[in-house]
């Protein structure tokens, strides 16, 4: 009967949306490192811990008033709630019951409540004995009045900070990753301390003329000596004692260097991911950025231009040397494979990236990255480089918005130079924006001075601009000559004097940068109607 009630209840919880929602909420609050709520909660907890430690320090020399007692109660309440909530979140008890029940049902054996219960308790015990849970508990326990003696353990609250700060957490992760080495070392050190304590106790006991009064003194002396600190408050007097000291100091040097090397090695291993984390952190400060996959010559050129324009970007490349070169230029860079989903997600393909540039030297890699990016984000602007003509189509199929062939463009320029060097210079000037001259676009904003204006009245000569044409999707213009279909719009080359501009038309003009900027500002201002 009891079994049935419990199983029924488990199914009830599974179906209960309210329960799932609440659990999700607390998961976001406490454990989900991607949720905003957790970062607020962490900050709040850090303040709370610092406050309670402040009162602890204050209470050493002063007596606390009632308000601070209340605060202490409040802190403890929060701590206990947090501890219990984390325990609750650690495993889904009702799911475990259902799983066991269904398994038993499927295998046609009797559902044993006791066994299931044992499993559940086992799981919860694993939580209780996890590193952070122990620290949480130690931070709570001293407040229990009969355990006031453990008040000093309140300092463990500071350890609670581990939970809320990422960098401290990484440090503890490093230690955990070297668990095996550290435990070996600890056992070795334990032996050493044990043997030397006994030896020094025997040689230097007060009864034989030494300074060691009891075993605790011997232990204290061993630790001070093995760590090569050597306060000198207890010094060996007998020959035997000195021999023990010499041996222990030498062994201590070994232990210390071993310990240092373990920590250094562990940090070295972790350093790369630490750096990457920092890069991602820095990246998350930008609202819009561009992902450059491949830092070859093309990637470098693009990065240089983007940097000049103060646009944010991140570089992903597999080659270590290229990443070093990128970091040398103070670019954000990650050494990884850009075709791996998680790398692109970390680089912000769905969180702020506006464009992805596939500029690796290999068409195969470019197609693969393009495909991956398109799959991850259906709307992002993907520009890819194709070294071979046949790859162009594949890249478009893979989802690239634009494909560029370095050799095609270069070949065009090379050919253009023959016979028409001046035209070549013109194209180059326009392409590269030389001498501050560039071809640029001006959008006709609604109600601006351009709206419904005839080309004849544009006064371009005075503005020192050359009008090349107008881009528009407006059907009104279709009757004009010289229209060229470009994607889903038309480009009207050299429009006639009576061509009437409509809103959202785009003027293509050639001119110096400041003339264009000035004109643009005028258009913007006039559209505000001031």
């Amino acid at each position, binding site marked *: 009967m009891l079994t049935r009630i419990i199983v029924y209840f488990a199914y009830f919880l599974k179906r209960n949306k309210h329960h799932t929602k609440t659990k999700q909420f607390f998961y976001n609050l406490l454990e989900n490192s991607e949720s905003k709520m957790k970062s607020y909660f962490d900050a709040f907890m850090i303040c709370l811990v610092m406050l309670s430690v402040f009162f602890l320090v204050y209470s050493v020399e002063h007596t606390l008033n009632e308000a601070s007692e209340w605060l202490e109660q409040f802190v403890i309440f929060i701590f206990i709630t947090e501890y219990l909530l984390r325990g609750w979140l650690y495993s889904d008890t009702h799911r475990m019951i259902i799983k066991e029940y269904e398994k038993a049902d499927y295998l046609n054996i009797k559902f044993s409540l006791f066994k299931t219960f044992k499993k559940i308790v086992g799981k919860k015990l694993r939580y209780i004995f996890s590193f952070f849970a122990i620290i949480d508990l130690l931070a709570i326990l001293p407040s229990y009045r009969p355990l006031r003696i453990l008040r000093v353990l309140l300092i463990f609250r500071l350890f609670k900070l581990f939970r809320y700060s990422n960098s401290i957490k990484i440090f503890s992760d490093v230690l955990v990753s070297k668990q095996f080495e550290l435990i070996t070392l600890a056992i070795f050190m334990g032996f050493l301390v044990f043997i030397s304590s006994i030896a020094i106790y025997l040689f230097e006991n007060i009864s034989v003329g030494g300074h060691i009064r009891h075993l605790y003194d011997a232990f204290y002396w061993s630790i001070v000596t093995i760590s090569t600190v050597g306060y000198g408050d207890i010094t060996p007097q007998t020959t035997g004692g000195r021999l023990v000291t010499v041996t222990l100091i030498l062994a201590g040097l070994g232990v210390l260097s071993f310990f240092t090397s373990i920590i250094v090695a562990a940090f070295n291993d972790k350093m790369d991911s630490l750096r990457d984390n920092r890069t991602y952190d820095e990246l998350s400060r930008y609202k819009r950025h561009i992902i450059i996959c491949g830092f070859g010559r093309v990637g470098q*050129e*693009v990065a240089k231009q983007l940097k000049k324009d103060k646009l944010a970007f991140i570089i992903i490349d597999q080659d270590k040397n290229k990443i070093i070169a990128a970091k040398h230029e103070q670019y954000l860079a990650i050494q990884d494979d850009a075709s791996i989903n998680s790398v692109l997600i970390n680089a912000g393909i769905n969180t702020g990236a506006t464009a992805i540039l596939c500029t690796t030297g290999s068409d195969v890699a470019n197609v693969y990255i393009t495909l991956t990016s398109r799959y991850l984000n259906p709307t992002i602007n993907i*520009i890819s480089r194709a070294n071979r003509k046949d790859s162009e189509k594949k890249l478009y199929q893979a989802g690239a918005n*634009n494909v*560029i062939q370095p050799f095609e463009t270069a070949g065009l320029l090379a050919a253009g130079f*023959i*016979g028409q060097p001046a035209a070549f210079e013109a194209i180059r000037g326009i392409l590269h924006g030389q001498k501050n001259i560039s071809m640029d676009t001006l959008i006709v904003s609604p109600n601006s001075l351009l709206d419904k204006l005839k080309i004849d009245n544009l006064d371009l000569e005075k503005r020192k601009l050359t009008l090349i044409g107008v881009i528009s999707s407006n059907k009104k213009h279709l009757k004009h000559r010289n229209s060229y279909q470009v994607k889903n719009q038309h480009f009207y080359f050299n429009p006639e004097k009576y061509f009437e501009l409509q809103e959202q038309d785009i003027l293509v003009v*050639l001119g110096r940068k400041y003339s264009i900027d000035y004109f643009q500002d005028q258009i913007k201002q006039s559209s505000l109607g001031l």
Partner: protein
Amino acid sequence: MKNKIVVFGYNHLSFNAISRLDQQQQEIVVVETDSTLIALAEEKGFNTKALDFRSDENLKSIGIGQDIDIIFCFLPNDSENVFLTLSARAIDTKLEIIAVVESPQASEKLIAAGANKIINPYQICGQKIYELIKKPCMTHIMDHTVFGRHDLHIAEIIIPEDSPLDNTYSSELMLNEKQNLVILGIVDKELGDDFLFILGEKDHKLDTGDIIVVLGPSREINAFKKDISHV
């Protein structure tokens, strides 16, 4: 008169460059040592010659120093291109040398070796990608029109002798009204050989030999060429 062009090295770049050139007006020879590449080039219908560019005798034998006007140095290594440029320049001081560059540092060396024009495909590609991000609209227009897919070209027109344009001013041209052409710039021989954009800042006096760079449909360009040669 046909231009005589020698292309050293057969690869993507040479293929693209050659196919953009007007085969009728130019006589093109591809020089390559790799027999498989030669076969590929011949398959496309190009004239080829298997020669080692390292020897001056070979270079002279294909006509450098005599009737060759232009050479393309499209060899795979920067060092080879520098070597070729240096050798060719030593044979013929008037030769037009266009070289491709792999690493940016090599471009200065190529200029020092005597190349007239340096092409850096990676830089051009990088620039283009950047343009696509910054001015997507603009780049599409350029791609679709000027770069081939539509009949809109940038052309340069040399003012011939006894042209009606001789001794007129650039502001009087009014090409956009009279000819449906947009004037981009000019090489005013009085001011040197540099290409200057015309933006209404300065009025240029046009003389015989000056070059006007215009943008427009090829029909109009040809018509304009005809007009100005007519007296």
